[in-house]
C-alpha cells in the first residue's frame, strides 16, 4: 500500500515547517476573540488617571476633597497610598504606580479616580488641586550627563542624571587601530520611536470578598505583572490571579509591569468593586517605554585584506523618567554589536541618562537596532574605501559555527553565509550595485539577534524559564496550559502544533488555554525573542512524556515492545508494519485505565552562559538569529522622497516551524524598521511630545510597503526545538541599514540622522551637489 513519498521540501514533519494558520484566527477576523476591553463585570467602575502637565515638579500638596465629594465618584487615590517602588528589573526599582513627591514628565500619573462612568471620572480629575514647585526641566541627555542642580532621581554619577554607565574593553583596541589599513568613524542620531500596538493599554481588576484580586490585562509578561502587583499592593502572589486575554500587539510596549495596571488594581482594592481602566492613545504615547533616543559613535578598524580588527563604540541613550529595561538596553547597545562578524578587539562606553520625558524601554529588537545601523553603515563605508564588495567584506568576517566571541558569546548554529549567498543571488546584486542609474540603488544590511535572553531577570526562586502542562481526558482533547503570552505573534499556534506533531494528533485536538495564573504554569513571557526556543522545548518535553505513555499503552494492546512502535497520524503503529496499529483514542483510553486523565509537565531552562566579568550575561543567549537583507530604492533627488521598491530578506531562524508566521514576522518587522528609518519619530520640543497621536506619528501607510521576498535559509539549531531559533525581533535590525546603504547607492549621501525624512534627505543631496562632486550620473 505504502508508496514511497519524496522528501518534503518543508522537512520531515507533518505540521511543523508548513504554513499553519493561527488557531485563533477565525475568532479574530470575525471579531469574536476576547480582548481585555471586551470584558464586563457587574458593578464595574471606570478608572481614570490624572496626569502631570509639568515636566518636572515637586508636589507640595494635593487636595482631593472636592473630587471625592462629587456624586458618582467612588474613590480618589494619590501616590502615598501605595508608594512601594517597582520596576521590571529588580536592580532598578524607581517607578511608583502614582507619583510620590515629584512629577517627572508631562504625562506622569498624579492621581487615580474610580467613578461610575467615564464622564464623571474625567470631571473628577479636573477637581483635584495641586500645589507644586516647578523644578528645572532636563530634556537633553547631554546636559543630564553632567552634574545637574536637581537630579530627576537620586543623583547618578557625579550628581548627574546618568542612570547607568557601562564600560567594557576586550583585547587592545588602540593597538588594533594603530595597525589598521582602513578605518571608519560614524556618528548617528536616532529619534525615539514607540511601539504603536493596535490594542490600547487596558486593565480590568476585580477585588473580591474572599480576599482575592483578579487582574485581566493587556500584557506580554503576566508573570512580572503578577510579581509586581504582589510587591506594591502587599498581597501574597497566591491571592492574586493574573489573566491575559487576547492581546493585540505588544512589540515590547506591554512587557514592563506598567503603573496604570497597578493603579487600576489599587482602585479595585480600595472600592471592593471591579474597575476597568482603558488608556487613550495619547496616554499610551506618554506611557511609551519605546526605543531610546540615541546618539552613538562607532569606529571600526580593518586590515589590508578586509579583516575586521576592532570596534570602538560610544552610546548615549535618553532614558526618559524611569529605568525600565534601561540597564539591559545600555549593555545591549554595545554587546549586540558583536555578531555576525568576528571582532577581535572591542571597546564600549554606554551611558543612559534620565530626562523629563516619557520613559524609554524595550522595543522590538531591543538594544540591537540603533547600534546595528551604525555598524552596517560604517561597514558599507569601509567596503568602499577598501574597494571591496560589501558582501565580500561581510563573508570574509563571518563568525563561524561553534565559535566564541571576544566577549564570550557562545555561537552554536549560524547560517549567516547562506543568508549572504541567498540575498546576493536573489537580488541580482552583482548586476545592480553601483550600476543602477542615479536615483536608484541597492544596499546591504545584516543582522544578528538573541534567541532568548539567557538571563531570566529574576533569579529567585530558581525555576525553569518555561513550563508547559498538558492534560488529555477521555474525550481525546489535549488542553495546554502555559503562561507564555500570545500577543499576535502566533505562539499559541506554535504551542498547539508542537504538541500535535509529537503526539501525531490532529491540530484541532489541541486547545491552548488562556493564560491564567491560577492554572497556567509559569513562563516568563513574551520578550527577548525567547518563546519559540524556550516554550517550544518545554512543550516538546511535555508532549514526549505523554507520547511515551500512549506508546506503552499501544504496546500492551498490540502485544509488541514499545521500541518497535512509532507515532503515526492519529495512530500508533508498528514501525516496520504500519498497517498494524491502534488509533490515538484507543491508545489513550488504554493509558487512562489506571490513572484517569493523562497529565504531563515539561520545562526548559538555559544553561549558564557567558564569562565571569561584570555584565557578562548581557546578550548571552542559547542561540542567535542571523540576517542579510538587500533593499532596492528609488530616491527623488529633488524632493528627498524615498520609495523602497523591494527587500530581499534572507533570514536564519534555524528551522522555520510555522512558515506563515515567520513570513508575517519578517514582513511586519520590515514595516516597523522602515518606519523608524523613514518617518516615525517621537517629536519633542524640549520635554513636550508634539505628536502623541497616530495622525502625526508617521507609521508607514500600507501602500508604502515594498514587496518582500523572504528567503528562509537557516539550518537546524542543535538546541532549538526541532531546530528552530527566533524570528520575532532579529528580522527588524537589518532593514534600516539595508535601506540607508541603498540610498547611498542611489544618490551618494550618508544618512546620519533618523528618521530620514524627505526634507533631511533633500538637504543632504543639495549639500552634496553644492560641494560640486557628482555621484553615479557622471559614470
Amino acid at each position: 500500500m505504502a508508496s514511497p513519498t519524496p522528501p518534503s521540501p518543508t522537512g520531515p514533519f507533518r505540521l511543523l515547517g508548513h504554513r499553519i494558520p493561527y488557531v485563533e484566527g477565525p475568532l479574530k477576523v470575525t471579531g469574536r476573540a476576547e480582548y481585555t476591553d471586551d470584558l464586563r463585570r457587574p458593578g464595574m467602575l471606570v478608572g481614570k488617571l490624572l496626569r502631570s502637565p509639568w515636566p518636572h515638579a515637586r508636589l507640595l500638596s494635593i487636595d482631593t476633597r472636592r473630587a471625592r465629594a462629587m456624586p458618582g465618584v467612588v474613590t480618589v487615590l494619590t501616590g502615598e497610598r501605595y508608594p512601594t517602588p517597582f520596576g521590571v528589573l529588580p536592580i532598578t526599582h524607581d517607578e511608583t504606580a502614582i507619583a510620590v513627591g515629584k512629577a517627572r514628565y508631562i504625562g506622569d500619573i498624579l492621581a487615580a479616580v474610580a467613578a461610575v462612568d467615564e464622564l464623571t471620572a474625567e470631571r473628577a480629575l479636573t477637581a483635584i488641586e495641586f500645589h507644586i514647585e516647578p523644578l528645572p526641566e532636563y530634556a537633553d541627555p547631554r546636559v543630564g550627563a553632567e552634574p545637574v542642580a536637581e537630579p530627576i532621581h537620586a543623583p547618578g554619577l557625579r550628581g548627574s542624571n546618568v542612570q547607568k554607565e557601562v564600560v567594557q574593553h576586550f583585547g587592545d583596541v588602540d593597538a588594533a587601530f594603530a595597525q589598521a589599513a582602513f578605518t571608519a568613524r560614524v556618528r548617528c542620531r536616532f529619534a525615539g520611536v514607540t511601539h504603536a500596538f493596535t490594542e490600547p493599554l487596558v486593565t480590568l481588576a476585580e477585588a473580591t470578598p474572599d480576599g482575592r484580586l483578579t487582574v485581566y490585562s493587556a500584557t506580554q509578561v503576566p508573570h512580572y505583572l503578577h510579581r509586581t502587583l504582589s510587591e506594591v499592593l502587599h498581597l501574597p502572589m497566591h491571592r492574586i490571579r493574573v489573566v491575559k486575554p487576547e492581546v493585540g500587539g505588544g512589540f515590547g510596549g506591554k512587557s514592563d509591569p506598567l503603573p496604570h495596571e497597578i493603579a487600576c488594581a489599587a482602585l479595585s482594592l480600595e472600592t471592593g468593586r471591579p474597575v476597568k481602566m482603558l488608556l487613550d492613545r495619547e496616554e499610551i504615547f506618554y506611557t511609551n517605554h519605546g526605543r531610546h533616543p540615541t546618539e552613538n559613535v562607532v569606529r571600526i578598524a580593518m586590515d589590508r585584506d578586509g579583516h575586521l580588527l576592532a570596534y570602538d563604540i560610544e552610546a548615549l541613550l535618553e532614558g526618559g523618567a524611569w529605568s525600565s529595561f534601561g540597564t539591559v538596553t545600555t549593555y545591549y547597545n554595545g554587546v549586540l554589536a558583536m555578531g555576525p562578524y568576528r571582532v577581535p578587539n572591542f571597546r564600549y562606553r554606554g551611558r543612559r541618562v534620565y530626562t523629563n520625558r516619557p520613559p524609554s524601554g524595550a522595543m522590538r529588537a531591543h538594544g540591537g537596532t540603533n547600534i546595528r545601523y551604525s555598524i552596517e553603515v560604517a561597514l558599507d563605508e569601509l567596503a568602499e574605501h577598501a574597494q571591496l564588495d560589501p558582501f565580500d567584506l561581510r563573508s570574509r568576517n563571518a563568525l563561524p559555527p561553534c565559535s566564541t566571541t571576544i566577549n564570550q558569546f557562545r555561537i552554536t548554529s549560524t547560517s549567516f553565509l547562506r543568508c549572504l549567498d541567498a540575498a546576493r543571488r536573489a537580488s541580482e546584486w552583482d548586476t545592480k550595485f553601483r550600476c543602477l542609474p542615479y536615483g536608484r540603488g541597492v544596499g546591504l544590511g545584516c543582522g544578528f539577534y538573541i534567541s532568548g535572553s539567557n538571563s531570566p531577570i529574576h533569579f529567585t526562586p530558581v525555576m525553569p524559564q518555561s513550563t508547559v502542562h498538558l492534560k488529555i481526558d477521555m474525550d481525546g482533547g489535549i488542553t495546554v496550559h502555559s503562561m507564555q503570552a500570545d500577543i499576535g505573534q502566533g505562539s499559541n499556534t506554535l504551542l498547539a502544533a508542537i504538541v500535535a506533531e509529537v503526539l501525531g494528533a490532529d491540530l484541532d485536538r489541541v486547545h491552548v488555554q488562556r493564560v491564567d495564573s491560577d492554572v497556567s504554569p509559569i513562563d516568563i513571557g513574551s520578550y527577548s525573542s525567547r518563546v519559540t526556543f524556550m516554550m517550544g522545548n518545554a512543550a516538546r518535553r511535555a508532549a514526549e512524556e505523554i507520547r511515551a505513555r500512549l506508546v506503552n499503552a499501544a504496546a500492551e494492546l498490540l502485544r509488541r515492545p514499545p521500541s518497535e512502535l512509532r507515532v503515526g497520524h492519529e495512530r500508533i503503529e508498528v514501525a516496520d508494519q504500519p498497517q498494524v496499529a491502534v488509533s490515538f483514542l484507543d491508545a489513550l483510553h488504554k493509558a487512562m485505565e489506571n490513572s484517569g486523565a493523562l497529565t504531563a509537565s515539561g520545562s526548559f531552562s538555559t544553561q549558564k552562559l557567558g564569562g565571569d566579568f561584570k555584565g557578562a550575561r548581557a546578550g548571552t543567549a542559547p542561540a542567535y538569529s542571523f540576517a542579510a537583507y538587500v533593499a532596492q530604492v528609488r530616491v527623488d533627488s529633488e524632493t528627498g522622497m524615498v520609495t523602497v521598491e523591494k527587500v530581499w530578506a534572507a533570514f536564519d531562524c534555524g528551522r522555520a516551524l510555522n512558515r506563515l508566521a515567520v513570513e508575517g514576522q519578517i514582513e511586519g518587522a520590515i514595516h516597523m524598521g522602515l518606519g523608524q528609518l523613514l518617518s516615525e519619530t517621537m517629536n519633542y520640543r524640549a520635554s513636550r511630545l508634539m505628536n502623541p497621536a497616530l495622525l502625526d506619528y508617521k507609521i508607514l501607510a500600507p501602500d508604502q510597503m515594498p514587496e518582500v521576498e523572504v528567503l528562509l535559509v537557516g539550518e537546524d539549531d542543535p538546541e532549538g526545538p526541532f531546530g528552530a531559533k527566533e524570528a520575532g525581533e532579529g528580522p527588524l535590525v537589518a532593514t534600516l541599514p539595508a535601506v540607508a546603504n541603498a540610498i547611498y547607492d542611489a544618490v551618494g549621501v550618508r544618512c546620519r540622522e533618523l528618521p530620514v525624512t524627505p526634507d533631511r534627505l533633500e538637504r543632504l543631496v543639495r549639500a552634496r551637489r553644492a560641494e560640486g562632486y557628482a555621484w553615479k550620473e557622471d559614470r
Partner: protein
Amino acid sequence: MHLDPFELHQPATVDEALCIYRDHAGDADYLAGGTDLLPNYKMHLNLRRHLIALGGIPELGGIALGRLGSMTRLADLEGSGPVAGAYPGVAEAVAEVATPLVRASGTVGGNLMLETRCFFFNQSRFWRASLGYCLKAEGAVCHVVPQKEKCYATFSGDLAPALAVLDAEVEVATDRGRTRIPLIDLYDLRGDGIRRHTLPPSAIVVAVHLPPIARQRLGTYRKLRIRPAFDFPELGVAVAVRFEGSSVAELRVAVGGLETAPRRFDELTDPLAGQQLTEERIRELAGAITRSVRPVYNTFLPPDYRRRMTGVFVRRALVDLAPASSAAA
C-alpha cells in the same frame, strides 16, 4: 477621550438650518461628514452645544456636470467617473484626501470649510492646558510665532486649490438670501487662521458650480506629505491651463497647505496669457510663487522645505502639462 453631550438638530431644508443656527448663534456648528469636526470635539476644541446636521437636506446633495452639491461624499465624487473625470485635477485631489474610510463620510463642503490646523491647536485639552492653550482656542498667545494678534493655523483642504484653478464658484445661503461668489473668495489671506472662511458664521455652502470652460483645461493636483494616505497636505499645488495652439489662453495656479488660506496667483499667471510656456517662463513662475509663500513651522515638515517644494511642484506640474514643443525640462 469622549464627546461631551450635545444636542443634534436635523433640519430638512436650508432655511430651517439657518433658523436653528440663528436660535443658537455662537453655540452651534454645522455638521457635514463629521470627520474633522468630531475629532476636534473629542479634543474639546471650540465646543458648541448644538450640532446642526446637514445630511438630511436634499438640496445640498446631487452631483452633476457643472454642480457639486456640498454634501456630496468625497467617495461619491471619486467614484463619479464622468463628473470627476471631466474636471482636470479634481479626481486627483479627491483621491488624495485622507483615507477611503474618511472619504466615505467626508464631504465636498466639509473639505472646503475644513478647520485650519496647527501643531499647537490639534491637541487634546490636556496637552493644550499644559502649555496654557493658544490663540485659536481658549488662549491668548500663538506658540508658532509668539505674539497675540494673529493665528498661523494652516488651511489643509485638498479640494479648494483644485477647484479654485477651475474658476469654481460657490453658492452660499445666508440669512440675507443666496449669493454666488468665486470659490477662492471664501478664503482671505489677510485674515488669520482663527477664521476658516470669509462668510458669516451662519452661512451654509449649498453647492459648487463649475463653469463649462473648466472642462477645456488641462490640470493636475500634486500633494506633498509623508505618507500617500492619512496625511493632510504639507503642500498642495493645483494647476489648470488652457492652450490655444501652443500659447497659453488661461493659466491658473493655486496652493494649499502652506498658509492660513489657499492662494491663487493670478497676478503672476495672467501676464502669461498669449505666451508660450517655455522652460524659462516656467522656472520664473515657480520661483516667483516660491518667493511669495510664507509657511510657518506648525506641521510635520519644516517650512523652508515646504517652500522649496512649492517651486518644484509648480514647475513639475507645468512641465507635465505644457505641450512637448514649448517646455523641454
